[in-house]
Every structure is written in C-alpha cells, then in structure tokens.
C-alpha cells in the first residue's frame, strides 16, 4: 500500500523513470518475486562503456590482437543501435582485468556516466588467444556482475574479431532483452571486382570480403538459407537464367532442379522449407513456389505483366510480397502464399525489391515516387507498416538506392547505393540513421543479410 501511494503521488509521476521494487507479501502467495516498473516517456538508450581489455600476457602477438579485439568490440556495440556508448576519451584511463580491479564509481561518475561497463583481459599464450570478459552494472555495486565469459581460440586476427563478435552479441542479447546479436552474421552480395558478377560474402561490418562462386558468368540475387548452409542465386547459363545453389558447408555449387523457363530472384521461407521465385516461359515472369529441394512447383500469380522479386513474411510464412507490373510501372503487392488476398501497397511511382522485416510488421523496398523524365527525387529506400500502409523514407538524395535487406534483429538494413557511377554496399539503422559504407571497390550490389 505504501508503494502504491508513492507511485500515484505527484512527486512520483513527475519523475519519469522511477522504478519501485517492492516485495508485496499480500500478493506473493507463490515464491516468485514481484517487480513494479513503468514508463511515460519512452525508453532511453543504454549508457555503456567498453574498457580497453587488459593485456595479460607478454606474448608479442598480444598487443596487435588485443587492439583488433578492442576495436571490433567497440564497433559492434556502437552499431547495435541499442547503446549510447561512452567515448573512449571520456572513459577512465584504466584497464581492469578482473572484477577485483574495477572501480565502478569511477565509471558511473562524470564524465563517463556509464550505467554498464564491459571489461576484461586478453592474453595470447602458446598460439591461443584467451579472453575473460565481464559486464558489470555500474549503478549497482552490491550485485554488479551481469555477465562473465571466457573464450579460447587460435590466436589470429580472425579469432580476435570472432571473440569480440561473440562477446558483443552476449552483451546485446543480455541488455537488449533477448534481441539477437548480429555481430556474427554475414552479408552475401554480388561483386564484379573479379571481372564477372559472382557471389561474395563478408562479415556484417564489411570485414572478411571474399568470393564464393567462380562461375565466370553473371550471377544475381543471392539469398542465404535460414540455416546458413546454402545460398540460392540466379545465374545465366546455356539454358538461360536458372536458380543455382551454393553449399556453404561443401564450398561448391550443388545441384538444384531447373524448373520452368528462366528463373530469377529466389527467396527462402523462414523455416527453410519453401522457396519462391519468378519464372517465365514466354517472357512474362510469374511467381512460383517450390519445396527447398526444387520439387512441388506451384504457380501462384497469373497476371499479365511481370511479377518478380518475391519475399516471404518470415513471421508467418503464409504471405508473399512481390513486385508486379500488372498496372504498368512496378508496384509492391502482398498476397497469401497460395495467390489469394492480393493487396497493393504502393500507390504509384516505381517500386521494387521488397524485403520483409523479421517481425513481419514492415516491408523495406526501393521506391522512386516521382518516376519519370525530369521528375524530382530519386530512388530511395522506404519502409512501410503493412497494416496501416504508412511509409517512411529512410534515405534522401544520396544517389540511387536499391535492394534493401533486413538484419535478423530487425534493427539494421543493408542496401545498395549507386553514386558517382559505382555501386556499393551500405548499412543503416532501420530508421535511416548511422549509415555506413561496407565496400570500397565499385561493382557491389544486391546484398542479402543472413538469418543468423
């Protein structure tokens, strides 16, 4: 009763984020604890400090690998879209290695004002990199530890980055309330830097770029399977365009039955059981679905005009969004996976490349709203709330954007940007902020973010 009076008092309402935790003996007949909390002004980003890890071994590899680790960890946490990171220049010049060495008061006080601190030690010994990482609540000195992790990998730059990715994902998942970290995700895309358009792969932050296929032809629209084992893509062969499969496990192209005519733009369902694509026998592409092994092919659209670029609703796998030219210029439509309940989403212009958000709520797509000679504006990335059909423009006047693809946490979008004659891969938060360029050599297009 005392707590109720305090919360309903004007003083308590005036303070926006006062949390009251009470044991309520009258209500706790069971053993579970009761927590009382609330809001009235939205949610703030989490103020997080990432201390430089303590080099705890004299191995000559330690400084360089630790530097890679520190940089990668800070970058991962910064780009998560969850944290308000404490600048390195404002953090105390300390490198605590163990919980006994950290002075939480120095981190929680100005100018750092950190609510949480990530710290630990990095050591290289006998060719192995050993990392002890901690996450502490700087505002709760009585029970500060939230996370404690140990990692041991072969000492290399890749391992240092991998460990940092994993530790960052742990922090993001823990403080983000169960959201999946994306630090270990990859981006698949088409690059022509080798002379031909091949399927390439890179880490989510643009590191580790390398080619997967070497088919010496034109490949388009790579789409990785939800289990991260196969990449479906369209490739030009002797029989025209066909969907091909690259096994990430075997490291080579595996067989996939050629179905009907020219097949393009494959799309996986989130359970990995189905694949949708566009195929044409007589020059009018239609949407088809098939099992993941290429069997049980079904045609789901029969419209006059091209129907391409299908994408599944990953939340339900019962809906497909696609791009249709049935009314002239391409527009975005949704339908049930059997071809019924068709709904048009865009009201004009030139809309292409839909991508469904992981939570099923939004569609990202490329849209030139004033399409035509001399029309103002350009092709930008938009997202639309499917239920209300209300849209938001994410990019503005930065060349020509296309092929958006959602990250598995639904916080980021990777897309292609053409500016100054070259196409590059960029990422941004799903509100259009914090745009970062991932590729530097021109001729990179059609990115697809992995599912995990």
């Amino acid at each position, binding site marked *: 009763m005392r707590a109720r009076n305090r919360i309903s008092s004007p003083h308590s309402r005036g303070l926006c*984020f006062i949390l009251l935790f009470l044991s309520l003996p009258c209500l706790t007949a069971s053993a579970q604890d009761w927590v009382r909390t609330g809001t009235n002004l*939205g949610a703030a980003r989490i103020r997080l400090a990432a201390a430089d890890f303590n080099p705890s071994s004299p191995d000559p590899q330690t400084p360089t690998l630790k530097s890679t680790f520190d940089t990668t960890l800070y970058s991962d946490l910064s780009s998560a879209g969850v944290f308000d990171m404490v600048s390195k220049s404002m953090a105390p010049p300390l490198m605590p290695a163990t919980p006994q060495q950290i002075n939480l008061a120095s981190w929680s006080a100005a100018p750092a004002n950190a609510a949480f601190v990530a710290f630990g030690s990095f050591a290289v010994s006998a060719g192995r990199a050993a990392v002890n990482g901690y996450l502490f609540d700087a505002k709760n000195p009585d029970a500060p530890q939230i996370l404690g992790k140990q990692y041991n990998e072969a000492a290399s730059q890749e391992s240092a980055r991998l460990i940092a990715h994993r530790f960052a994902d742990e922090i993001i998942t823990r*403080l983000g*309330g169960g959201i999946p970290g994306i630090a270990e995700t990859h981006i698949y895309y088409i690059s022509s830097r080798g002379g031909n358009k091949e399927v390439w792969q890179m880490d989510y932050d643009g590191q580790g770029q390398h080619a997967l296929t070497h088919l010496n032809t034109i490949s388009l629209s790579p789409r990785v399977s939800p289990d991260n084992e196969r990449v479906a893509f369209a490739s030009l062969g002797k029989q025209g365009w066909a969907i091909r499969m690259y096994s990430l496990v075997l490291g080579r192209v595996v067989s996939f039955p050629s179905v009907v005519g020219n097949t393009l733009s494959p799309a996986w369902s989130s359970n990995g059981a189905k694949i949708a694509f566009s195929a044409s026998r007589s020059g009018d592409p239609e949407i088809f679905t098939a099992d993941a092994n290429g069997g049980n092919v079904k045609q789901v659209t029969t419209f006059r005009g091209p129907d391409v670029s299908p994408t599944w609703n990953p939340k339900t796998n019962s809906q497909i969004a696609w791009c249709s030219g049935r009314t002239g210029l391409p527009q975005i439509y949704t339908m049930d996976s059997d071809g019924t309940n068709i709904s048009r989403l865009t009201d004009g212009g030139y809309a292409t490349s839909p991508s469904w958000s992981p939570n099923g709520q939004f569609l990202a797509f490329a849209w030139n709203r004033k399409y035509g000679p001399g029309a103002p504006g350009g092709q930008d990335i938009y997202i639309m709330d499917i239920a209300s059909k209300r849209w938001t423009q994410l990019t503005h006047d930065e060349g020509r954007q296309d092929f958006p693809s959602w990250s598995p946490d639904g916080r980021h979008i990777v897309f292609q940007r053409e500016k100054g004659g070259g196409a590059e891969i960029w990422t941004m938060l799903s509100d259009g902020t914090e745009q970062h360029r991932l590729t530097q050599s021109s001729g990179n297009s059609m990115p697809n973010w992995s599912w995990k």
Partner: protein
Amino acid sequence: MPGASFHTDILDQPDGIGSPFAKSTLLHVLLFGSLIGYGYLHNLLHGSEWGANSLQQGAIQATLVSTAALPLPQDHPPTDNVLSTETPSVAPALTEQQTEPLPLPEAVPIPEKQTPVKPQPKEQPKTPPQHQPPPKPQNKANYGEAAPPNTPRATAANNNANSPVAVTGGDFGSRFGWYVDVIKRKVAQDWYTQEVDPSTPAGATVYVQFAVGRDGAPGTVSLATPSSSPSLNSSCLHAVQRVDTFGPLPPGYNESSLNVLYHCTYPGAR
C-alpha cells in the same frame, strides 16, 4: 369775360345720360335672362344623367369592404423636399474652346521637366480564397507518409537516463536491477502513445500485470488498476503483448517466473 361765359355754357347744357343708362340696363337684363334661360333648358335636357337617383342599375356595382385589407397609402403629410423645385435652374453655359496662340517664331521652347516614371507595381493575380474543405470521414486505413515508425530499435530521448534505480525492497530488484531495466525499456519501446485518446489527461496511469517465464517470454497480461481512459488501458496492454521476449531470466534467479506490475503514465498529447 370769355372764360366765365364758356364755363357757364357747359354747365347749362342739358344732361344726355338717361338714354344710355336705359339701354345699358336693358342689355344687362337681357344677359341675365339668357343665362337663366340656358340653365333651365340645359337642366331639362341632361339633368337625369349625373347624380340622378335612377332605379335602373348599371353594369358595375361597388361593394364596401374593410379598409384593413387594402394597401392604402399611409396618411403622411407630403415631404417638403428642399431639393426639388418646379423651376429648375438654368444649365451653365458652355465655355468656349479657346485655341492656343501660336508661338512666336523667335520663341525658344522651354524644355519640360522630365519626371521619372515610377514603375507601377505589377498587379499580382488575385488568388481565389482557399477554402479548407472539411475532412472527409475516413473509413479505411490511413495511407501516406508517416513519422518514423516505432521499430524495435527506435528509442526516445531521456534526460533522466542516469537516474539511479530506486529500489525499495524485493530481492530481485536489488540483485537484478538491470533486468528490471530491460522490462521497462522493452515495454516502453512498444508503447505507442499515438493509440491513446488525446483527450486523456496527462498523468493518467494504468497498471497492468503479467508474469515473465524463465525463457523471458511474457505471459498473459491483464489490467491491475485501469485508468479512466479505455484507450490508455488498451495501449498499455498492447505494449506488453508486442514484446516477444525480455531475454532469459538471470541465471542467478532460481524461480520459475517473475511477476511484474507495470504502469503506463500518459505524458499528455504532444
């Protein structure tokens, strides 16, 4: 005396007025008699045509009606219009057109002072008044550009982000305050204040309760203390229902679930 004799002669002559007087009297009698005779004869010929009480009725019969229904003119005295007159004044005479005298041959014309021509401001085309058409009632979903949506990553500014967590009791809150922060933040991110009726007074508060399982998934949410605004109540319920998971309960917490009492306080229409 010649003068006296003459005067005497005039006065001595006989008076000749008797005969003309008699003739004049006779003439007047005749005139008077002829007038009376004319009136008598005229009365005999036309006396029964005007005002006679004849028994024979005419074709028109007048019927007396009430004067109240007749649009008779008001009985006002005539207006003395001082501007009206029956003798209009004479129109002014036209002035004669006089011709300019020719200048003398040796005259040098004085140049006229050239006054700069002031540019006339261009007349702006009058725009018809813009009348705001009344909004049409919407019976379909709104379509158009929206504000940035409340995507899972979207966060709002908070000037009080570093305020310490107030712990007033309870073992979970003191040990795992960061997890309570997670609950607060995730529900707050999914609470769309646009769903709340703007007429809801600022400060209106609704309390909802739910349980969090070990895997972090919220259980069934229900109203604990509703507010006076149904839209506020439903918006807070929806906020909890939108959360898929809060993340697994902390490993150090050994109970099967965590009960949460969450309040949404409406900040007022913005």
